[in-house]
């Protein structure tokens, strides 16, 4: 964290290399967050991610370290960018309809088939949740962020984050169980 604070300070002084390091550290997490929030549309996820980092770089002078990781600030910018995205455009592809190749990057190529299917499945049900539930589940379980950091990013209390997390998991479990039940019935009928 101390190291990150120094990098932020250097970036605030206008040192591109320092911001470059911060970019390298957080690009994947922010991209993942955006990608899952925009229903897996790769092009939109890239555009929004670009906007997030451009905005962060342009406004780095305004950032004040308050004891929280730099990523909290980036997540906050990303959330606002996603809200703007949904406000200004009408996405017409549901996440579960997104082609499978969107998920496969160089890193995941050759990844076991069952894992890819699992990713598809969980991704599909994630989009059925309320936006704030998605935020908490992605940050908590995909990115391993602390409740404190999530609370800062979402501008909520830690207690509220815990409650949201509990409800989100419950809702996701319900969707998965309903699907399993439907699959079981279909198999029996067949």
């Amino acid at each position, binding site marked *: 964290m101390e190291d990150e604070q120094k990098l932020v300070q250097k*970036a605030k002084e206008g040192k591109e290399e320092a*911001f470059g390091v911060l970019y390298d550290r957080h*690009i994947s997490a922010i991209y993942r967050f955006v990608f899952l929030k925009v229903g897996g549309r790769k092009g939109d*996820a890239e555009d929004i991610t670009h906007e997030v980092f451009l905005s962060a770089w342009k406004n780095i002078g305004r950032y004040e370290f308050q004891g929280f990781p730099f990523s909290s600030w980036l997540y906050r910018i990303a959330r606002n960018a996603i809200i703007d995205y949904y406000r200004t455009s009408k996405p017409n592809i549901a996440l579960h309809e997104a082609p499978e190749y969107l*998920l496969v990057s160089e890193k995941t190529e050759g990844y076991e088939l069952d894992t890819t299917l699992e*990713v598809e499945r*969980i991704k599909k049900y994630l989009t059925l949740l309320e936006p704030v539930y998605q935020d908490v589940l*992605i940050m908590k*379980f995909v990115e391993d962020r602390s409740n404190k950091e999530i609370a800062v990013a979402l501008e909520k209390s830690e207690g509220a984050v815990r409650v949201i997390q509990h409800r989100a998991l419950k809702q996701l479990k319900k969707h998965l169980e309903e699907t399993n039940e439907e699959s079981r019935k279909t198999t029996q009928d067949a």
Partner: protein
Amino acid sequence: MKNLAKQLKTLSVIEPDVEFVAATRRGILVVPGKRRSMWGVAPLWATAFAMLIVSIITATSLTRPSPALSAVENPELLSQEFNNLTINVELEAITYRQTVDQTIASALNEISSNTMRHLNKELLQSEEERFDVLIEAGNNSEIDTLLNKVIF
């Protein structure tokens, strides 16, 4: 729930394209960040500089007395100012007295002189007689009638 958490964790395999990451990095860092304000000074330093200027101005105005007070502090200047004031007052008094003296002398001269038209005894007497005639003439009934018309 643990199983759910594990399932969610599988989403961490999602990664952006390497080309996208590199292109965005290049594109963003070309743009200058808004970390500096006026005169290329960081906002914190600009604020500190502004506060220093204000402090200097305030301190200067508090330590430097006004021109009026500076005269009090300098006895010579004060004495000189006072002397000039006395001279000015005296000159004004002299001018006033000269004017008054001339007026009084002129009035006395007029009173003592019989040649003046408005102080001539004969003239005053004839005026007095004329006034009596006018009073008598005031008994004229025509005048009374005309006055009554005007008033009522």
